[in-house]
């Protein structure tokens, strides 16, 4: 388990972790590194990897981390992954925690920044709202963008022009 420090924000003001990011391989460390680069608040997150942990050990790691810090939220990668399963078990004993599965950078970033804007060490009062807001941000960030298809060679007559020759990029999903 690692706690990535921020690279910006108030100098010298190291804030307590408020969420855990857990997932396969280096998913958590990589995601937290990206949060740190963008917001300077990587220290608000603890990274947990499932690498070489059995289910019981993983649950214990999450439990210990959530008890040692004012953690309110656990972000995991796959809905059926071992970190998610361990987190679900932990939630059974800790109804004050929330779990977000399928987390992406937009989700976690929104949560961390939301906590900063709330101006408190935790988002205790509005944790549910903050989580729902972050989930919506993450959902909106997911989109597929395809390049426009190459214009077809003109048959006979005038060359093809405009939208008929080059359709706009196709997006599936929304803007982030």
């Amino acid at each position, binding site marked *: 388990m690692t706690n990535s420090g921020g690279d910006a924000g108030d100098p010298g003001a190291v804030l307590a972790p408020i969420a855990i990011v857990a997932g*396969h391989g280096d998913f958590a460390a990589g995601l937290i590194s990206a949060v740190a680069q963008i917001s300077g608040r990587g220290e608000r997150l603890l990274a947990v990897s*499932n690498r*070489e*942990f*059995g*289910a019981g*050990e993983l649950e214990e790691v999450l439990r210990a981390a959530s008890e040692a810090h004012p953690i309110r939220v656990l972000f995991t*990668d*796959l*809905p*059926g*992954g*071992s970190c*998610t*399963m361990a987190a*679900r*078990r932990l939630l*059974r004993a800790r109804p004050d925690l929330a779990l977000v599965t399928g987390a992406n950078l937009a989700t976690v970033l929104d949560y961390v920044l939301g906590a900063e804007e709330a101006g408190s060490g935790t988002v205790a009062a509005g944790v549910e709202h903050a989580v729902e807001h972050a989930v919506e941000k993450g959902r909106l960030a997911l989109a597929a963008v395809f390049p426009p298809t190459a214009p077809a060679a003109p048959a006979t007559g005038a060359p093809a022009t405009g939208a008929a020759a080059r359709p706009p990029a196709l997006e599936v999903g929304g803007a982030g």
Partner: protein
Amino acid sequence: MPVELYRIDDRLIHGQVVVGWGRPLDLGFVVLVDDEVAASDWEQELYRMGVPPEMEVFFHSVDEAAAALPRYQRHARPGIVLTGDVETMRRLAAAAAAAAGRDGGHAPIRAVNLGGVHHRPGRIQRMRYVYLAPDEEAALRALARMGIAVTAQDVPSARPVPLDDVLAGRGDG
């Protein structure tokens, strides 16, 4: 359609199973064999939430699973049978072998995949993802004596490591 994989994995349903194996094998169902899970609605609901909607999941004790194996071995889609520990798989294999000797409905288990047995006090590390206690090693050897090919392989793209190499600590080489 046969059961594609009989797997020992102490994490039971998780990413490697539902995605890592599930996608390439086009798994349509998972049979989770565990006496404790079979007796707990809460545990079953937990694991049910871990599988994608297109995949069925069934829960059985060892005895129930042994009786139901022919049904799964004739299922229209490929599937996987999962146990969380070595001894449960040994019991299941022994029950399936005994039933296969009595009737024509059961096909004996031919191969067992060692997918993940992680650290615990009393276990010795044999591979990156395989730690075994002496009684677990004995149970694996018992499976091999039944004519079952036991190999360690966490994901489909990895090389299957024969049991002898696992127990000799040569699996990660």
